[in-house]
């Protein structure tokens, strides 16, 4: 129980429901499944009248962030993407010029996926789901750090894989911190959030289509990254793909590949006709236990890579000791390599970037890309046959 001091009495006072939502400041840790729901939150909270400048995402992960804000609050967890969250919480609690009123850190039971309908379900990793509980402990174990600073800690369990449940879950969690919040209003705001997220995803899929179209027209190679969404965080994925980009290769990510019907028909049509798969998004042929959203998408993207002639190289990123990734190593590698596509895995990503060995590995990959890409494209084009809609200049995204 914190001892009441003048400072935290004032803090309490300021955080009380003032009726003015535009003043309410909400912080969200930029971690884990937030990397696939970001735009939902921007759309959702804006629709509730939270000023954009008052919605604060923590900075990207860095060792300095953990050092300043998270040290000594870590928990025993070998998963760095979870462990680093202590630094994000700490930054939101201690590192803001203007204090936050709410630390919003949802626990995702399931996450949205474009494969929904074709797979069994889209759960998140149990470690990812429980991470907020786990990390919270480091701020409550000795003293209630949130309470002392007048910060409300809000951490609802959310079923993002079942959008109909989400408004109720969010309303229950936020009714106390957002003055006058009704379920109807939450439902409307959630719809705006979904729309924002879908717009964002669609925009990036169009960018990817444009990249592939440009490659197709010039018969030029590009690279596909297979990783979990949070590997886009420079402190977790260490921007390894950016070093390959600097060698002159466009980089696609498995989360944002084009999925327009004509392309899907060209890539998967024959298999569907044979009855091997039920839809272009069916992965039962390679991954029958399709319950994890990120894993399902990894496997689907591996299939995409195998069939797409201009993806001549796949880079796999995995964090140290990732139990979810472990069983996917061989299937993903085999799917990619069977098509003759180059495959390289960085499997032990952790807090520190092993810059020396990464530099040599990137140079190594660039060497093989330069020498083998032409043959790989020719071989995959022969296998896939003519008529790829990407080669048609008019398919270029606006």
């Amino acid at each position, binding site marked *: 129980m914190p001892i009441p001091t003048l400072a935290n009495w004032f803090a309490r006072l300021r955080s009380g429901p003032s009726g003015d939502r535009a003043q309410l400041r909400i912080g969200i840790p930029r971690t884990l499944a937030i990397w696939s729901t970001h735009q939902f939150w921007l759309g959702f909270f804006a629709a509730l009248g939270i000023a954009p400048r008052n919605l604060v*995402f923590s900075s990207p992960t860095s060792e300095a962030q953990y050092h300043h804000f998270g040290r000594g609050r870590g928990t025993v967890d070998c998963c760095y993407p979870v462990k680093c969250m202590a630094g994000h919480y700490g930054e939101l609690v201690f590192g803001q010029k203007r204090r936050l009123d709410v630390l919003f850190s949802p626990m995702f039971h399931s996450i949205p996926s474009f494969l929904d309908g074709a797979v069994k379900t889209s759960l998140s990793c149990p470690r990812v789901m429980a991470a907020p509980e786990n990390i919270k402990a480091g701020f409550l174990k000795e003293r209630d750090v949130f309470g002392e600073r007048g910060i409300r800690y809000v951490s609802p369990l959310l079923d993002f894989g079942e959008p109909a449940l989400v408004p109720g879950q969010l309303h229950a969690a936020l009714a106390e911190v957002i003055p006058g919040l009704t379920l109807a209003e939450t439902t409307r705001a959630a719809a705006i959030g979904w729309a924002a997220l879908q717009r964002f995803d669609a925009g990036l899929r169009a960018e990817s289509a444009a990249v592939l179209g440009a490659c197709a027209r010039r018969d030029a190679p*590009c690279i596909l990254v297979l990783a979990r969404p949070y590997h886009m965080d420079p402190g977790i994925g260490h921007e390894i*793909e*950016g070093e390959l*980009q600097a060698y002159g290769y466009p*980089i696609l*990510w498995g989360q944002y590949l084009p999925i327009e019907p004509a392309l899907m028909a060209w890539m998967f049509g024959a298999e569907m006709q044979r009855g091997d798969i039920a839809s272009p998004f069916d992965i039962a042929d390679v991954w029958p236990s399709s319950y994890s959203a990120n894993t399902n998408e990894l496997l689907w993207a591996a299939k995409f890579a195998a069939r797409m002639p201009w993806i001549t190289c796949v880079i796999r990123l995995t964090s140290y000791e990732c139990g979810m990734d472990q069983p996917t190593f061989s299937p993903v590698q085999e799917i990619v390599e069977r098509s003759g596509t180059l495959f390289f*895995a960085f499997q032990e990503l952790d807090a520190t970037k092993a810059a020396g*060995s990464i530099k040599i590995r990137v140079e190594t990959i660039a060497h093989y890309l330069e020498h*083998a890409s032409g043959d790989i494209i020719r071989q995959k084009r022969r296998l896939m046959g003519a008529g790829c809609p990407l080669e048609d200049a008019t398919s270029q995204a606006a």
Partner: protein
Amino acid sequence: MTRLVGVDVGSTTVKAVLVADGAVRWQDYQRHGTRQAEKVLSFLERMEAEAGLVAGRDRIFLTGSGAGPLAPLLGAKMVQEVVAVAAAVERLHPDVRFVSEIGGEDMKTVFFTEAGARRGKQVYMQAACSGGTGTFVERIAKKLGVTPAQLAEAAYADVSRHEISAKCGIFAEADANSLVKAGVPVEEIIASLFEAVVTQNLATLTKGNTPLPTVLLLGGPNRFFKGLREAWQAHLARLWEQRSITLPAGAMVDDLVQVPPAALYYGALGCVEIARTEPSEVGGYSGLERLHWWIDVGQHEAKARAGAKGLAGDAEELERFLRAYAAPPAPSSLDPEPEATVPPGPRTREPVVIGCDFGSTTAKAVALSAERRLLGSWYVPSKGNPIEDAKLLFGRLREAGFEEVAGLALTGYGKDLLRDVLGADLTVVETVAHARAALELYPDVDVICDVGGTDVKIMILRQGTVADFRLNSQCSSGNGAFLQGVAERYAVPLEDYAAHAFRAQAMPQLAMGCGVFLQSDIVNQQRNGWSADEIMAALASVLPLNVWVYAGQLRNLQAAGRHFVLQGGTHRNLAVVKAQVDFIERRVPDARIVIHPHAGEAGAIGAALAADEARQSGVASRFRGFAAIEALHYRSTTSALTRCSWCTVQCRRTFIDVAVEGGPGRRWSKVKLAEGWERVISGNSCPKGLIEDKDELRVVKSRYEETKRAHPNIGELVRAAAFRAVR
């Protein structure tokens, strides 16, 4: 009156107390020089003579890493070390909330909670790595020529400090060396070491708990090093301020972070505390008879039992091994034709291709004939000036009689620096060069293991490409330099290492892992009576474990493949090869293991093969010619303007400016360079130093950004846009 004896047998010292009537009647603390049993014997003999210790009446409890084999000999009960320390603290300091005990080769922390009469405790300990322990500080201080007395008095407060790796003792040594080279005063390095020890303890042994006042610091290093105490005080004071910990009114940090006078004896005192809580028949002191027997007979028998079978195995096994690996390698396609030996003959007038490997310690070159036969190899030790190294190396090639060069390729650390200066046709990354050299002879190779003097590289191949690559970068364990150091200590030339090691019938088992502990383990085993031959055998046999598991982080060898190629200079040592073969075959029973016939020059050969491929594509070589290289005109500048400013080490770099036709010059540089000149930077201790300064970074960065703009990265678009409000 029953006397209670507590003995703490640590990794470097023995501490003992005798308590009667609730008061300490006898105590001593001495280094045991790895003779733990002998030291305990002499302590107990003195207690019997000086303090009336009597067998059959009095009680004895032992703790510490060396107590295990001794306790049953004395009738003593074993107490776990952290439990012992905590028991003493609970009794003597009811108000203490946090304890750090740092030992020679371990470190522990204990957190006490306030709850109730029986206080909760949380204990953490680590003893696998030297980072953060007393050895870490002492070893480096010794290297710096700091006496123990100076070390004890060295200050922390008000001394500038520098970055030193706290993770690994050997890397810390490397950091300390570069600080010395950069002219940093010794006192600042020592203060930085204290900083590293405290940082490491707080980083690894707090696990989410805040060390609260009052804090107790125990163990030799905390007791003896004034600077270490100051470092703790500074760190804890800052931490308490950050975490808004309410301190007792008027308390000074000195009062809240204490080193008690008996700081060395808490393990031993804790034994006595535990003794008080145990029934009186537990730990009855049985006298010294069996300890005498142990010292004279028992420990030697135990040693023989604990030791492993010799590295060589039996005569038949050794012969089988030597037949497979010591015989000259089977003729390979790279071998020179018998009549085409170098030096000069008419054949050398034919065009050759040259591959060079500019490493950090040596520069090597090989020449291949048009039929890809190896015509010879040359090497020069690196003098730190790549231009001079290159001139010397190409001088050797010229002496050998080569005239026409049809292709030149470079690999190694210096490849990009020298590419334009020498007119190389291409540069080849190290991994690809090594793989190319192995694939030339063994097209189905799966794993290449290259153990050099200072690094370990493991390359895993799939579909003829290097699919995975491990470079030991976190830990220095497992390289060849260590082997060489030990051989030198025994005055055994490296060529004779294997013969000595194979002579050993048995060998001690050395600890895998940290090179610092490996070194002290060797000293221990030597004192245990193991001979030089036996220790050399043991060292070779632990090397594969360090290479694959500790440095390479590769636990499942079978998944990597079955065809292994061993190369790198360290694999010229057959004792190492025997250990590698045993190690690999145990894990991959159907493994095929070969030593590359040109183990030391594989990198240069790979480069030459790549150059030959380029030659076959019909492109004329850009090679500047021997005469031009010999005549290379350069000027070097070492001044305040060339000093590296990327980090606190501030390496004293040298800019070597070479006059080269078409050289781009550096207009923006503080040390201006006209067109027609090329700059090569040397003297830096990390790759960052190859970029001259902020101005060059700007130039490099804008080029980099341009490439990136032309080739989008979807991940980067996400980073840039995903967390911004929708417009």
